[in-house]
């Protein structure tokens, strides 16, 4: 994928991320500087993986620190959540799903057609992820709490 096309494509995902997080949680995370990650790479305690096919192929891995996970899930549920339990994981999986769904809509408006898989959300200590493609990481900050979106994608020739 050429750099300008990649940048435009990523911008659709990033726009969707901010729109969806703000719309359903009222929170506006600050975006950090994107960077390339070598694989395998460590991720936060909670991750949500969504596959993408069509004009773009690969995976998007959402990685949430415990505090970011609790904060986002609390905002979605409308009550304080202090545990990373099954319902919290489901909420974060759904958040990732909505970000990717919105991304798909924005991409289709730009003539790029994709479909997404259901999210796989899991939690673990010292988890590392291996992708076959180079990974572009976009960090977000909710004050001191962090989430990352890792893009392992190709396509859009």
């Amino acid at each position, binding site marked *: 994928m050429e750099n300008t096309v990649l940048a435009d494509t990523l911008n659709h995902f990033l726009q969707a991320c901010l729109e*969806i997080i703000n719309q359903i949680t009222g929170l506006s995370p600050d975006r950090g500087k994107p960077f390339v990650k070598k694989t395998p790479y460590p991720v936060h305690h909670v991750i949500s993986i969504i596959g993408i096919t069509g004009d773009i192929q690969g995976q998007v891995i959402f990685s949430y620190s415990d505090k970011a996970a609790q904060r986002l899930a609390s905002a979605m549920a409308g009550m304080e959540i202090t545990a990373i339990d099954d*319902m919290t994981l489901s*909420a974060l999986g759904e958040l990732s799903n909505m970000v990717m*769904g919105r991304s*798909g809509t924005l991409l289709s408006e730009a003539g790029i*057609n994709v*479909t997404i898989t*259901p999210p796989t959300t899991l939690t673990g200590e010292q988890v590392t992820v291996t992708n076959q493609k180079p990974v572009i990481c976009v960090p977000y900050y909710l004050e001191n709490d962090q989430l990352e979106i890792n893009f392992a994608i190709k396509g859009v020739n």
Partner: protein
Amino acid sequence: MAAKILVVDDAAFMRMTIKNTVTKAGYEVVDEAENGAVAIKKYEEHKPDVVTMDITMPELDGIGAVKAIIAKDPDAKIVMVTAMGQQQMVMEAIQAGAKDFIVKPFEQERILQAIKKVLNK
């Protein structure tokens, strides 16, 4: 008698959210399904008045489930509730037989309006 709703979504959180919304509005959630294959079985079992149906699900997606349900019950009232808002997806769902299409995230009132509208038809 309260209208009977079947809630279909692979995310337990979303099923809970929809269930809470429609229950508060006076509807009865007769059952839930986590994928399209289970949705078909639950539809046959309960014959709900309305189904809320996600699209992206494992086993069988929502479009496939809509087609199967409509094939057995052409009068089935199915409202799509999905994160996938592409024009193509909307057209596929409506052509499959869905009566309305709601894109997540949605306001509570939107889903209640959709259910009320399909029940009044």
